């Protein structure tokens, strides 16, 4: 890869301090370290995976609207966790996490537990209580 070919396709890194660094050859054939803002091919790969997650979440979102499962089930899937990881990272027993996947059980949760789940999933409590309208 030549220095001038190092991609600068800013997308996910935009507005963050995160950046890629590439090694590329200059006009004399010597390697240089060059900062890169991102590459479309890479961003497309990531977007493909994220779109798939979104698709997997849609039926769960519908279930939440019909009060069949709790919003926690939706946000767990959306934020790439499973019951084991959610239980381990929140410190809440797996048995209880499973129970909180039920719509009615979830409505009884106290503020502290909601905050714990929200922190574990990196969302706000308000986001946790609902699902997007779409």
């Amino acid at each position: 890869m030549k220095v001038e070919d190092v991609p600068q396709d800013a997308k996910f890194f935009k507005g963050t301090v995160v950046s890629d660094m590439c090694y590329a050859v200059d006009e004399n054939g010597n390697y240089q370290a060059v900062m890169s803002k991102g590459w479309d091919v890479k961003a497309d790969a990531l977007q493909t995976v994220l779109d798939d997650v979104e698709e997997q979440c849609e039926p769960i979102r519908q279930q939440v609207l019909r009060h069949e499962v709790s919003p926690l089930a939706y946000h767990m899937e959306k934020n790439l966790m499973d019951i084991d990881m959610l239980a381990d990272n929140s410190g809440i027993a797996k048995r209880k996490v499973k129970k909180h996947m039920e719509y009615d059980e979830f409505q009884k949760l106290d503020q502290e537990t909601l905050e714990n789940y929200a922190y574990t999933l990196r969302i706000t409590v308000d986001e946790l209580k609902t699902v997007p309208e779409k």
Partner: protein
Amino acid sequence: MELDFIHKPAGHCENGVTANMFRFYGFDLPEPLIFGIAYGMFFSHIPFVKLAGLPVSSFRTFPGALFSRATSTLGFKTTTERFLVEENAMKKLDKKLAEGVPVGCVVGMYYLPYMPIEYRFPFNGHNICIVGHDEATDMYTVSDPNCTEKVTISRKDLMKVRFTKGGTYPLFGQMYWIDKAPKELPDLKPIVLKSIEKNCWFMTSEPSVIPYFGCNGIDYLAKQIPTWKDKLGERKAALNLAQIIRMLEEIGTGGAGFRFMYGAYLQMASQITGENQFKEFAQRITAIGDNWRTFAADAATIFKRRKDACTYDHVAAQIAEIGKLERQFYADLMKVAKAAR
């Protein structure tokens, strides 16, 4: 309290932390040199190890190996510790910082507050270096090689990233630091030649009955790709391919990137050892890196479902070709490195 620590971004997290730590102790070594000396280039495609349900490929050596190989070869004394109790892990960190020692930590990506939201994947195996602690606000200063400048993280978040559960790799708050730096670096010439030989050996020596590692792994991946569509269906096959590209190009793994980094290393190796042929090898591995990038761009046409999409057979053939080129490359390079010793 913040250490007088110069932060420089790097292509890869573990090299970057190691390079930044070396600089702190007065040895300004470029990242590719550290990567090369630690013979970090590798390939593995292990279909039964899964990350979020997709097979894991890696283009580098095992986490932790780079730091321990680079430091022990160059004569640094180091310590690595793991913890069962989170509070102890933080206390030990505070103690080392108070002694004026920058501390490397292996962390999970998911809870890093400064990462873009799209990058919050349950990937455990990122490396950062803690270089300061503000007692008043309880914020820690972090040198993360993926960032252009130093960043901060709260105590709560730091504890969380050091003990993120699930994902690829159990964390146990793993931390490492340099106890003692050598007065001066050893003669690099024999070290460089040996490291090149070792890296070639790692890429080519695996018996063909174990198909997952080294050049065998590349051939194996080439054979697997055409079977995905029938075996897994359109959607899962496209996802698998996208996953390879992410592993190839993403933070923490960077495949083509490592080939270029090794090219840079071979140029330095040529200067250090006086062996001019390494320059030609640098050009060869650069061409191979370019092939990896072409493969990535072609593969993207498949998972983006473009009208003029390439076929799975086409990208598989590209990988098979890369496998052949890499195998020949390491075999030839090994001969030259051996002869120069």
